[in-house]
């Protein structure tokens, strides 16, 4: 059976829409169709957070609230979710929500335009009911730009309001909400429109997805729409056929395997964080700095791979780790090393109707160390100018196997072949060997100048990152080598 409506929970009602445009955004739905103008458009590209709403999702029977940029979220993507916007927080008696109250009392708004988005981000932190320290608050707010306050009062409000167990109306009806969301999960394929003229589809299984995409290889696959959303809002591209991956059971598998982790193409960054933490703390920091919570709540590793950005913040790390990529077309599947997937700028090894199903990321062996460093103008929520990732297999103070991959250095995320060769067999105290490896790096890449950095800086700093990795491989604590992303338990060596 196929369902021809999008259904979600909003203001206590199940909303069922049969007239959903394939390219219609959630923000336009709120502002233009519902005249709910509390949610603002600041940038229409998912970077400022003024349009943040909370989406309630049932995961393993538990209701979770995540922040989402409604400006680049397609309306059809919220099927089966609860939608909460800023107007919905205030009680029927007009009483402010604890988060609204705290922001107001701490003088956390000036012009007020970013405030609804900030309130919604903090609403999700309030409902997370976990750790609420300065770092956690900063991470929660990384996707919300405020140009007036300097954030201090907002952070204070968050620290006050978001500590402890949630006690608002949403918490009180948590069980009922979960039941209503469970009832919406009918396991049916969703398709609005018609297959000839254009549609929004959200197949319920990978098989249905494979069949639909085989029939429509010209369709646009959308996971979190954190990139495709901009094709719509900025490039004004008409994408008549949208296939959303978010409901395809099996695509969101995340499981431990003998060698490491299998991460389905539909797994969001937020869900993948746990697996990354089990591999190496540098990956936790890398994911923490990838987009912001609004992006990580819906964006997927699969999408990051498939759209082939030359920077693709996670790619160098996954390549250095030795990740295997799985693809499927109709019923045919194949696998390849991740680095082989990227052929040239905007060109991936992906046939018509073929799609990414997932990746396998191996754990580190006991003789292996991993390091990765992201360089950007701003630490949080910025795309890297340069990203270097390294996996060294060490044996008696010597590098026996080296994998080094970089982003921002070429038209694709790429391994540094000459550098890897120069590193193999290197004794860690052999500084001449380090110099030779750095020289090799200059032969591996011809970076370009752009708005993020010059070619000169990219190459200089790529070499510096290699040296940094070697210093750390040699035992230097990250507290002495870094100002961000310190590895847990590493303090400054005694002076």
């Amino acid at each position: 059976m196929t369902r021809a409506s999008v259904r979600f929970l909003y203001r206590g009602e199940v909303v069922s829409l049969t007239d959903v445009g394939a390219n219609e955004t959630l923000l336009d739905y709120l502002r233009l169709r519902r005249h709910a103008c509390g949610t603002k458009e600041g940038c229409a590209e998912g970077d400022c957070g003024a349009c943040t709403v909370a989406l309630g999702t049932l995961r393993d029977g538990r209701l979770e609230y995540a922040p989402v940029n409604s400006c680049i979220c397609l309306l059809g993507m919220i099927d089966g979710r609860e939608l909460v916007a800023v107007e919905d927080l205030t009680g029927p008696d007009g009483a402010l929500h604890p988060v609204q109250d705290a922001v107001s009392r701490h003088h956390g708004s000036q012009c007020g335009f970013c405030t609804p988005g900030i309130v919604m981000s903090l609403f999700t932190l309030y409902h997370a009911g976990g750790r609420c320290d300065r770092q956690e608050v900063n991470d929660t707010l990384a996707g919300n730009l405020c140009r007036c306050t300097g954030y201090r009062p907002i952070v204070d409000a968050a620290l006050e309001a978001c500590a402890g167990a949630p006690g608002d109306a949403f918490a009180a009806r948590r069980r009922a909400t979960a039941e209503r969301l469970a009832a919406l999960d009918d396991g049916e394929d969703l398709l609005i429109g018609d297959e000839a003229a254009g549609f929004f589809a959200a197949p319920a299984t990978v098989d249905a997805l494979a069949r639909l995409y085989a029939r429509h290889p010209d369709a646009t696959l959308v996971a979190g729409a954190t990139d495709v959303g901009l094709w719509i809002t900025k490039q004004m591209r008409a994408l008549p056929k949208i296939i959303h991956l978010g409901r395809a059971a099996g695509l969101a598998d995340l499981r431990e395997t003998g060698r490491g982790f299998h991460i389905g193409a539909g797994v969001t960054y937020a869900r993948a964080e746990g697996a990354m933490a089990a591999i190496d703390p540098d990956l936790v920091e890398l994911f923490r700095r990838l987009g912001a919570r609004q992006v990580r709540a819906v964006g997927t590793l699969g999408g990051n791979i498939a759209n082939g950005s030359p920077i693709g913040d996670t790619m160098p790390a996954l390549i250095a780790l030795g990740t295997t990529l799985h693809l499927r077309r109709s019923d045919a599947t194949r696998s390849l090393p991740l680095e082989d997937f990227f052929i040239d700028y905007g060109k991936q090894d992906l046939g018509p109707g073929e799609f990414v199903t997932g990746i396998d990321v191996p754990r580190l062996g006991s003789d292996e160390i991993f390091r990765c460093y992201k360089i950007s103008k701003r630490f949080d929520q910025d795309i890297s100018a340069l990203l270097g990732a390294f996996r060294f297999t060490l044996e008696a103070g010597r590098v026996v196997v080296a994998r080094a991959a970089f982003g921002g250095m070429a038209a694709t995320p790429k391994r540094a072949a000459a550098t890897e060769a120069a590193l193999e067999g290197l004794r860690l105290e052999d500084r001449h060997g380090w110099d030779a490896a750095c020289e090799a790096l200059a032969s591996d890449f011809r970076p370009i100048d752009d708005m993020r950095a010059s070619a000169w800086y990219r190459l200089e700093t790529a070499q510096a990152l290699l040296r940094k990795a070697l210093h750390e491989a040699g035992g230097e604590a990250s507290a002495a080598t870094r100002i961000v992303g310190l590895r847990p338990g590493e303090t400054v060596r005694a002076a």
Partner: protein
Amino acid sequence: MPPDLAQSDRTSPVDGNHAVGRALAHDSAAGHVRGTARYIDDVPEPAALLHVAPGHAAHAACGQITTLDLDAVRAAPGVVAVLTAADIPAKNDCSPVFGDDPILAESRIAFHGQVVFAVVAHSREEARRACRLARIEVEEEEPRVSVEAGLASGDMVVPDYQFLRGEPQAAIERTPHAASGSLHVGGQEHFYLEGQVALALPGEDGTMHVLSSTQHPSEIQHLVAAMLAKPDSHVVCECRRMGGAFGGKESQAAQWACLAALAASVTGSAAKIRLDRDDDMVMTGKRHDFRIDYSYGCDGEGRLVAVDAALSARCGCSADLSMAVCDRAMFHADNAYHYPNARILSRRVRTDTVSNTAFRGFGGPQGMMVAERMMDDIACRLGQDPLDVRKRNLYGRGRDVTPYGMKVPDNTISRLVRELEKTSDYRERRRAIATFNRNNRFLRKGMSLTPVKFGIAFTLKHLNQAGALVHVYTDGSVLVNHGGTEMGQGLHTKVAQVVAEEFGIDFDRVQITATKTDMVPNTTPTAASSGSDLNGMAAKRAAATIRDRMAALAGRLYQVPRAEVRFAGGMVEIGKRSISFAELAKTCFLERISLSSTGYFATPKITWDRASASGRPFLYFAYGAACSEVTIDTLTGEMRVDRVDLLHDVGNSLNPAIDIGQIEGGFVQGLGWLTTEELVFDAKGRLATHAPSTYKIPVASDVPEDFRVALWKSRGNREATIYRSKAVGEPPLMLAISVFSAILNAIAGLNPGRVPALDAPATPEAIVRAIRSMQEA
């Protein structure tokens, strides 16, 4: 002015049941957090509303338009009209002063992104989509993009201007220590969260009502009227609030309001324009970037004897507000330091880029950068602590006349710097930093304590005036309207506090209304930090006029001398009697006493004459100081701010919560300007950083956890300002120069004796370049 009013202007608030001086929340705080505070795009849309989108040549920066083919645009779905310069009934200009900014380009374009046509359609999406279908061909000329390219062409938007005192070059040659240097200071995108927006509603008899997100409603009124060949009285401009402005909506909100009004005039329907963020960033001007060249001479202790500085600003393709911006840069090229001999030369360079405009500080921040760079330059070369050099050069007794001839009448900055030196534990931390740097191979720390002295008043004399209108209703509620606009700075809150104070009533009894040109006419822009100084005083006078009438009546009715009628706590004490404020208001109505009044204020003592470069440009100075500590990674150029201490002088604060908000917010905005916010234009003159994905303003984690902010314990403004407060909108932005200077300090330690060639913004790349400059032979 009546003598009793002049006296009352000077009264200070006292503790107790007073509206002024209290840390009240922003008047819209509850609306902000609920999402019910309405911005223009949230106003319920009138029937048959049309939407406007601006169109420009996709690639070209400058040159003659050879083809303008809009057929496909006209034929696109939903399109109602396509407007070009030919559709403008009268004046095609949206400039603030010089008449050089066309609303729609005519025969040539002057920068990439200049609006050539506007589409009017049934939906915003249809209008935006249709824009892409235009075919515009331009006989492209090589654009002048950088300041240097503009300087080379010799083309200035307004003539050079300078302050000269003594014989700086000769004096420099006679000093034991002379040096010179140069630096680039980057521009800054405003990134107001609410983009440019306007809604025009055609009225009867050819009138036009324009809702605009603008700092200057009167200017919008005048430009729309001139565009449509109507008297000013036929156009009303209204602004309830802006979602941020920072100077970006002082002159450059006008083009969008004009386009909405033009569309409404041509079609007869209401029309709205709301810029897409990328269009907004490409089509509107920014903070001027500067190239600064300086030479100086100082004595053996680092005390300046002479300064010769040239400030070359990239103004873009037209004058806009560049004359006043560059003048203010000159007025602040001394910051807080005495220059016995000085030449401050300002060049206002034309480039083929978007016309740069007002931005919080208005040139002052860029001007101050030369003063602070010279302090660091001296400290590096003489091997002295930079704070010692700064303290020696501060204005003080006998060293108190600025290069433009105004006396610095107080010694506040010196005392304020000493206080912060103590409270920030500067000396002890300086020692700890030295130890850290000795023991670290890759990471280096730096610290700097820098002062701010900022002149308060518009340097264009006639702008220093304001009007207000106050009504008291018979139930005792009060409505206030004034010429200032609310952009988040809390102006309406402060003005309402002042009015509540005058009537001795609760703040909540004062209703704040939208700024509107038919309520208070002939207003000046809300800018130059002057909003509360001007409008607070005008509203106070309006309220005082009514209050005095009420008091006179009460005295007459109850046979009590006027001096024994007091307004406090929502009550009016009339001798031994006490009645509610509302009761007296009702009595006034019954006794036929007017309960409405205007109030007007013009800043006294301003005598600046630009032609002769003489007189007094400012009523007073606002002061502050900041101490910042940073760590840099010498391998990558990454930087982290570890601790910041701010001490700022707001006189007697009207509202300490709002003032602290301005101080912290201004500092963080300045931090962004000098560190992460980098505007990159490509060689073709196109802005490459036209979205928040590539243009990075500070986020929460960029603000140090250890952030100590205090108000200077002031005895009140020495000038008779509103409750002896001081302006606070712009000055704190420049406290962030301490961060830039601290980064320089960290780099300087790598090779003592050399001056790091650090440009702003200090991105990781700029820091690595400066580190390399220390290693060069």
